[in-house]
């Protein structure tokens, strides 16, 4: 739902949070993909940088996994609401 669509402030906030959360998740996936590309592009690996990248990627992966889990749960609820034919 677009954040502006609802007249209820609580619903508007929830929708806005959901939308920015979704944007956040996409951004994280993009960052992870960027890190993997960096590794692929290194002819000679700089260990120091590699350690930093690994640390960052691990953090991103951890939060993304959590967020993906939340999204999956939301989706299951919605699917149950839509019901069968």
């Amino acid at each position, binding site marked *: 739902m677009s954040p502006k669509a609802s007249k209820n402030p609580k619903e508007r906030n929830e929708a806005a949070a959901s939308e920015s959360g979704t944007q956040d998740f996409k951004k994280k996936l993009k960052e*992870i*993909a960027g*890190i*993997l590309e960096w590794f692929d592009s290194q002819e000679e690996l700089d260990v120091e940088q*590699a350690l930093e990248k690994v640390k960052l990627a691990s953090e991103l992966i951890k939060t993304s996994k959590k967020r*993906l889990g939340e999204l999956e749960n939301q989706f299951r609820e919605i699917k149950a609401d839509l019901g069968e034919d």
Partner: protein
Amino acid sequence: MLDVREKLFTVGEFIAFLNEIFKAQAVRVTGEVCELKRAASGHVYFTVKDKEDKGVLDCIIWSRNYELCGVAIEVGMELILSGHPNVYAPSGRLSFVADTVELVGEGALKKAYDALKKRLEAEGVFAPERKRPLPDYPRRIGVITSMKGAVIHDFQNNLGKFGFVISVLDSRVEGQQAAAPLMKAVARMRREAEEGMIDVLVVIRGGGSLESLQAFNNEALVRAIGSFPVPVIAGIGHDQDVPLVALAADLMTSTPTAAAHALGRTWEEAFAKLQQVPYLLGRIEQEFRRVRNDLMFARDSMTNQVEQGIAHGKDVIDYAERFVRIHDPRRQLAFGYSIMRRDGRIVRSAGDVAPGDRLETELRDGVVRSRVEPGGGMESGR
């Protein structure tokens, strides 16, 4: 029963007796007007004479009947009078009391018809702007007609079963004598119309000559129809000249049957539309099914795409996790490699350290702290 031969009448009683008999003897007399006088009261006194014989007859027509008869009596006119004889007691004079007066001959009738039509036309009595449309779905119908003859049956048989409530007034419709009863019937129907008890007035009769339809060219009747409170249908058959009542009505039909059909027209149209309802309901049902199918398709399409998106996200994260694990420099520590740091920076070369430097060496399972011995550094590679 009174035997008049036995009774001894006074003059007055005898005159009254005669007048009783005369009143029961309604007759029609024809003659030419030879004298004429209109009193201040409006009553008209005139004399008619035979063309053939030498007979003359004094006549009276009371003002109310004269206004109704629609004939402007003039000397020289040939008339047909309907009425009865009467003896005027004070003078003992016999005269003829005319209830109605009509012109003799088609020629005279036509002339009077044309003149009245022209006059009423000029006044706008027949103007198209004055015609009112029939109400939609009329239900209560007032009918003025003669109950003798086929006209009323033709009308009722062609009305259609739409729940009409018919109120019929039987009236004379033939000749000039029909003018008074028709006026009375219209007056009664007017009261019903004003009380909202009829939606439409229908005046019907079968075809006839100008003479036969005289009453329907009566000025008073024409005006009464033209000013009727609800729409009027006139279904009056005619030869050449349209009866003036028909011209003054809101709708003119050539037959009583056509008048019946006119009343049923909006009902027929409504019923025809109702016939379409099952088909339209079928179309609506079809549309509901189509929209429902579209919604189901949209739901399935959406959920499939989201499921695929989630699965893809999982794949990406799983791959990233494995990739990062494999490329993590600390993975080499399990093979006996270590990472050495001085002041938090990774030591890449022996030349990066000097004797006395404090070092931290990260091994597979922990960190070892050490200090470079004198003589350590570049030479330590040996």
